[in-house]
């Protein structure tokens, strides 16, 4: 076993540091060393997206990023997007449109959709379906996820317009 390495990163706006084995994955460090259990592990092979986090402004599957690669990075997980006391509009719209059932894929869905709407604030239905294609959901049949993201885009754009 190689010596542990010392990692520093910013997670949800908070500076954190931890020791980890060089082979440890970012998702394991988040969940097990930093106790950030919102992102889930659904496949360990980059296919399902349950572990999606935002790393330096991009959606990544944290099951296929070594924690060492995230040294110095700025990471946002679902916990950094909204909280039970103050849901983000995306989270509100997922609830409003029943865009979740068992909830296991949901943190990845929210985190990916949050980035998607920054990449493309006015996505079409097709752009949402393809933009979310890296995230599997086995419960909802995707219909209400797509509707929730469309509704969130509308709300967010209206709020932006009102602010301008």
């Amino acid at each position, binding site marked *: *076993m190689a010596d542990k390495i010392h990692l520093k990163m910013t997670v949800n706006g908070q500076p954190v540091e931890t020791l980890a*084995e060089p*082979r*440890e994955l970012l998702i394991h460090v988040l*969940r*097990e060393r930093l106790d*950030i*259990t*919102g*992102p*889930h*592990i*659904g*496949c*360990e*092979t980059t*296919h*399902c997206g*349950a572990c999606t986090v935002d790393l330096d402004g991009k959606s990544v599957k944290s099951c296929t990023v070594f924690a060492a690669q995230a040294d110095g990075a700025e990471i946002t*997980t*679902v*916990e950094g997007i*909204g*909280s*039970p006391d103050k*849901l983000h509009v995306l*989270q509100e719209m*997922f*609830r*409003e449109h*029943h865009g*979740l*059932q*068992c*909830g*296991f*894929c*949901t*943190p990845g869905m*929210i985190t990916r959709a949050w980035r998607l709407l920054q990449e493309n604030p006015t996505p079409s*239905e*097709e752009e*949402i*379906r*393809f933009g*979310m*294609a890296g*995230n*599997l*959901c*086995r*419960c*909802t*049949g*995707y*219909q*209400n*996820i*797509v509707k929730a993201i469309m509704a969130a885009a509308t709300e967010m754009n209206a709020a932006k317009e009102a602010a301008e």
Partner: protein
Amino acid sequence: MPKDGGIGASTKRREDIRFLTGTGQYTDDINLRGQAHVAFLRSDVAHGRIKGIDTQAAAAMPGVVRIFTGADFEGIGGLPCGWQVTDRQGNPMQEPGHPVLAQGKVRHVGDPIAAVVAETREQARDAVEAIEVDIEELPAVVDMKAALAEGAPKVHDDLSSNLCYDWGFVEENKAAVEEAFAKAAHVTTLELVNNRLIANPMEPRVAVGDFAPHSGDSTLYTTSQNPHVIRLLMGAFVLGIPEHKLRVVAPDVGGGFGSKIFHYAEEAFCTFAAKQLKRPVKWTSSRAEAFMSDAHGRDHVTKIELALDAENNFTALRTETHANMGAYLSTFAPSVPTWLHGTLMAGNYKTPLIYVNVKAVFTNTVPVDAYRGAGRPEATYQLERVIDKAARELGVDPIALRRQNFVTEFPYATPVAVEYDTGDYVATMDKLEQIADLAGFEKRLAESKARGKLRGLGVNCYIEACGIAPSNLVGQLGARAGLYESATVRVNATGGLVVMTGSHSHGQGHETSFPQVVADMIGIDANMVEIEHGDTDKAPMGMGTYGSRSLAVGGSAIVRATEKIIAKAKKIAAHIMEASADDIELKDGRFTVAGTDKSLAWGDVTLAAYVPHNYPLEELEPGLEETAFYDPSNFTYPAGAYACEVEVDPETGKVTIESFAAADDFGNIVNPMIVSGQVHGGLAQGIGQALLEGCVYDENGQLLTGSYMDYAMPRAADVPFYSVDHSCQTPCTHNPLGVKGCGEAGAIGSPPAVVNAVVDALQRAGHTGVTHIDMPLSPSRVWSAMQG
């Protein structure tokens, strides 16, 4: 207009708050102080004799606590099977042992051979690599018919063959069915495969075993749809732990679709090892392990024949099915191709004579058990495909042929032993024609043609039997369990309620919909009702969530317990208001003496129950807590009609779903939003089965679809917006809510619609020789069919 938070309201789900913010608690989020980690060494051959296991080098690796093999489980029970099917001769099925860790032989890729317990997950995985196993590879049986051939290698040496059972239903009808076929004006025959699927809930299975040396109590945290069932099966049959010394907890469960009903080896192992090592032991499945250890679904090969008279009335139906059991009998495996399949073969039609033959076969593959729909999708698929083929052969409209043969009078006793209480198949078909705009199909067909695409329309019906019951009947059919549900309703002094239920949500929203029922009955705010589930220390007993039973059975138990609460509360109110209990009315959370202005609030009465100063102590005990067990008198029978329109690319064979409409009759509905969501999810899984998903083994029993690279799951871009309607409602006549169950309908009804649509598209394009394509309808299969 339903009251907000009451029955019929699309109340937003309270559980969403934690799921949306990453604060849900799933089993993998549980980490106990001092816990060790497990990694399993699994067989990489499908069939082999274990000649030796050398764990010496592995045991010396860093962090290794202990290594277990099959030898450690000598004298300990194997995993039990919960259903015994009786064959055509009246003999019990062949029932092999199922050890927790392999003993002597391995029988499928993924069969666990050894388990390493180490300080960390990585150390456990490292040590697994260092175990030396000497396996003499044996020839494997994968194909079911080959497995039944004379001289085929036997999966279990101690059984007479690979035949688990040869089941006939209804055996007494066999001769009459043959006679009807001999007299038929037309017979349509179809051979088809119901493709093997893997449930793939997004949360992999997890088990955390814990043991308290001071009390001798064991606890298992597990990803289960039915923790009480696991407690009973594991405690009584595997580890010999009485229920009062064993607690099973299933916290938030990330989907199941049937695959988390069953008792698995890893659960027993972690509970056992925790007791041996006197420390918590945790196992988290990787997705690769899930593919080779979660029970698979479907995998039927069927020949179906439909006999019709000269007026196109269905006169008889005959089927022969081979059903794959895999290498061992998973918990409810034998019931799926028999009682959950044969009893549904009448469908929505008044076919007077039916005979179903099922041969269940052992092969060197992962055990096969219930997956969303379980037997009912297999029945629906073959029936609705053969009807479509018959219509084509007879040159009649497939919808008209169905309508002509609909059951229209209820109750209706089928020739396959069940009695439909209510239904209106004409109404759901009418509704479907409207919401799917079937009248506009020709126009859309022309538009597709103009784009160079082949368009097809597929329509079918389905019926489902939910909430499998009653217990005394299923006992006669071979179930080794009762199929009731329990509920305890505890009213606190200040009026809030806790409902403890044996049903357990794995995504269905029980924490929202169950309070809607209770709040409606009492007339209080739904937020005064809290649901506790998923813990054997809380609910008295439970059979869990599967077979679309939670509301129909679990909800009915809650109604019964709440009725007892109300009856007692009325007596208390009557005493305080000096009236007769018969004169007390409860409305909007107030007890009133009928015809007077005397009234008491709900909270006044609940407080009196716990501060019984002015209380009928000579007649009533203080307190307000009641338990009810509800055992249904019959199944419930949701039914509906589905329509799918597809486009096929003539160059590539790629199928796209252009529209999908579902008209369902679920009886009364508590939360329409949740019901629609259930249908959407079922449709996606059915569309997945029809177009994308298929589990493939090679001839040596190697699992070729062992990851998401090879097993195609439906993604957001693969499915359309669905049009769903559940306004046709014929309430169930025998449960207090009049509800029928909606969880599996989408997965049951959708595969035939898709396949009917693709065959229709090809037929319309002149490929008249294409009468069937087996699922999944991949581009290569569709393209090949078009090439003739």
